[in-house]
């Protein structure tokens, strides 16, 4: 996924975090390569993050995943130094924030990096609007201006009507919208979201994910999203980092990780994945269908011969620059030949198409109800293959066996937890 090179917003280098009263001693043992549990038993120091190195690009949603205790919350809290890194550096726009003094740190927290919490963490004694304006209030912005900006932020999350309520009068989902509005209020370029949607029920959670993606479309912020929910990570993440015992074991796009998991831990994460939400039409589209080039010299007659040679009933008609025109069947071609018409006249009416980004779950219906393989057409109108029923079933049924670690083909995916397909 290097087709759109973006600037690195955050650069993490050799980042370590050891909790305890003698972190340097813990550091020494970590550098010697000792195990987390061993270090705790020996010194009572808890290792949070070990030698993390990765870059976060401007405007992407970067999901950090891992089981509880894997250090992901620790990691995200070092980006605004709620936790002090024990060693290493975090550069935001080229500035090492581990060196900021108190005043610089407060400025960073007020203007650049804001945070959404799993427990919402709203101020129970403040009205919603004052909660949202809290960061601005701390920055000494006048009441009038901060209320105006807070109201704008509340509008973005659809809660302007509740500005005068108190947090405990709102439902969980609404409270987290307030949390989100509070983070958006100062319009920071970086958002930290610590399991922000984990405390919400599944329906509200996916609603909030959509909301986040929508906000992201309006204005691209760099979002670091902590999650233990793979479906969530796959859904919203541009790239995912997977953490295990304080170590970042793999960083990549959801696809890359799904196809080439770095180790068994990563693989075990993906075992329960609902493939229909992860794989897209692009992943399973095949180019095995017969394509008919729409040229003046090639009429229905030539097309019929092509199909008969390949023993196919349908042909996919393509114009100049691989522009997709439609699907023609043997029967419709035969009629066009009899009428001595051009190839275009043979195209079947109401031919459905799908985009490469469509998830399998969304295309099942159309693939099932169309008699031929459904053509995949990209945003420029170009033909990108077709999804047949058999290809779909095969993708949904494919399982990565433990003895077959790397799925080299695009349609290899774990599906053990899938039900009823």
């Amino acid at each position, binding site marked *: 996924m290097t087709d759109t090179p973006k600037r690195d917003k955050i650069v993490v280098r050799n980042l370590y975090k050891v909790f305890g009263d003698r972190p340097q001693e813990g550091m020494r043992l970590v550098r010697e390569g000792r195990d987390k549990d061993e270090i705790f038993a020996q010194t009572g120091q808890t290792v949070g993050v070990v030698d993390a190195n990765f870059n976060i690009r401007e405007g992407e949603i970067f999901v950090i995943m891992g089981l509880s205790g894997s250090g992901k919350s620790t990691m995200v809290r070092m980006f*605004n130094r*709620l936790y002090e890194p024990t060693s290493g550096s975090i550069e935001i726009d080229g500035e090492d924030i581990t060196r900021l003094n*108190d005043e610089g740190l*407060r*400025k*960073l*927290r*007020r203007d650049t990096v*804001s*945070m959404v*919490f799993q*427990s*919402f*963490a*709203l*101020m*129970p*004694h403040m009205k919603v609007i004052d909660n949202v304006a*809290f*960061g601005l*209030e*701390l*920055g000494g912005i006048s009441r009038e201006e901060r209320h105006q900006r807070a109201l704008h932020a509340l509008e973005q999350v659809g809660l302007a009507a509740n500005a005068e309520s*108190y947090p405990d009068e709102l439902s969980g989902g609404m409270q987290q919208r307030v949390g989100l509005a*509070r983070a958006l209020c100062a319009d920071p370029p970086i958002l*930290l979201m610590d399991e922000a949607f984990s405390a919400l029920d599944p329906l509200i959670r996916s609603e909030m994910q959509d909301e986040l993606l929508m906000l992201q479309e309006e204005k691209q912020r760099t979002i670091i999203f902590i999650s233990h929910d793979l479906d969530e990570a796959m859904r919203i993440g541009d790239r995912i980092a997977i953490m295990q015992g304080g170590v970042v074991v793999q960083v990549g796009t959801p696809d890359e990780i799904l196809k080439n998991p770095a180790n068994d831990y990563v693989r075990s994460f993906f075992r329960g994945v609902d493939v229909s939400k992860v794989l897209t039409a692009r992943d399973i589209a095949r180019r095995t269908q017969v394509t008919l080039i729409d040229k003046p010299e090639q009429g229905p007659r030539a097309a019929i011969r092509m199909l008969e040679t390949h023993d196919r009933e349908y042909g996919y008609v393509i114009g100049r620059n691989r522009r997709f025109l439609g699907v023609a069947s043997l029967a419709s071609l035969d009629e066009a030949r009899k009428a001595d018409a051009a190839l275009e006249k043979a195209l079947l009416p109401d031919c459905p198409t799908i985009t490469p980004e469509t998830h399998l779950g969304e295309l099942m219906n159309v693939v099932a109800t169309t008699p031929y393989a459904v053509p995949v057409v990209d945003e420029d109108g170009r033909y990108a293959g077709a999804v047949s029923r058999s290809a779909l079933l095969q993708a949904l049924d494919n399982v990565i066996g433990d003895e077959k670690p790397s799925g080299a083909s695009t349609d290899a995916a774990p599906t053990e937890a899938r039900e009823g397909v």
Partner: protein
Amino acid sequence: MNARFNPLQPFDTLQLPFNEWVRDFFNWISGARSFFRAIRQPVDWVLDSVEGILQALPPGLMIVVIALIAWQLVGPRLAIGSFLSLLFVGMIGAYPQTMTTLALVLTAVAFCAAIGIPLGILASRSDRFEQGLRPVLDTMQTTPAFVYLVPIVVLFGIGNVPGVIVTIIFAVAPLIRLTNLGIRQVPKDVIEAALAFGASPRQLLWRVQMPLATKTIMAGVNQSLMLALSMVVIASMISVGGLGQMVLRGIGRLDMGLAVIGGIGIVVLAIILDRMTQALAQSERERGGQRMLDRGPIGLMRRLAARGKGAEQASAAQPNTAPARSDAAA
């Protein structure tokens, strides 16, 4: 004295002149008169001015003022209750003593707040300080008041001011504890959120911790007040005036009437002050979202003033038009 040591009767020979040591200590320490006078001074001023105000108003007016305050802070029921009960206390002849006791208690509580809340804040910010403070507070709360009455008399003499000082020592501990507790029990995630949005330590304290601890701190103030009232009788033994003096004298002379009159005065004060401080602990929201200035007698006055002004403006602008009148009425 030169008898031999007998292990079975060790105390015949093993004796510490502890009593004399203590006496010597206090003789020595009371040499620092100016120091103790410096402590007395602010208490003296506050007490004098509070009592001055309370005694200066004519009783009839004073009772009405207290009733109005009760209405403002709590509601009309307590207003009527305190008006009638204070009237009764006055009729049984305990009005001046009640005002003296009220002045003593209010002064003591004011000092408790001035000392206790900052100490509580400090304790909440430093585990070390809290650990050091805890045994001191335990001692202050468990030592019977009679025990430190004596050193107080030695150091400060007798009268109302030492009485207030004794009361402060007795009553300040729960306020320190509850302030500390209130700040410490502010949820961690809320504090983390405040820090994440760039709160400085001072902002964290004043915009997050203190507002969220207010209820607990006010409970501490309430406790201090109640303890101060319970100290009234004991403090009267070092010649503190007021209702306690009546009770003490009543007991001394077996004059049941006098003792009961004093007792009734204390109970009436206790109930009124308790209700008032409990109401102070409620947030604006718990009182139904009405601001203090919009409620009670002040609210009534403001509404009346607004109506008068509105009516004036309406009649000045457009005399005798119905809409303007209804606006003003609303």
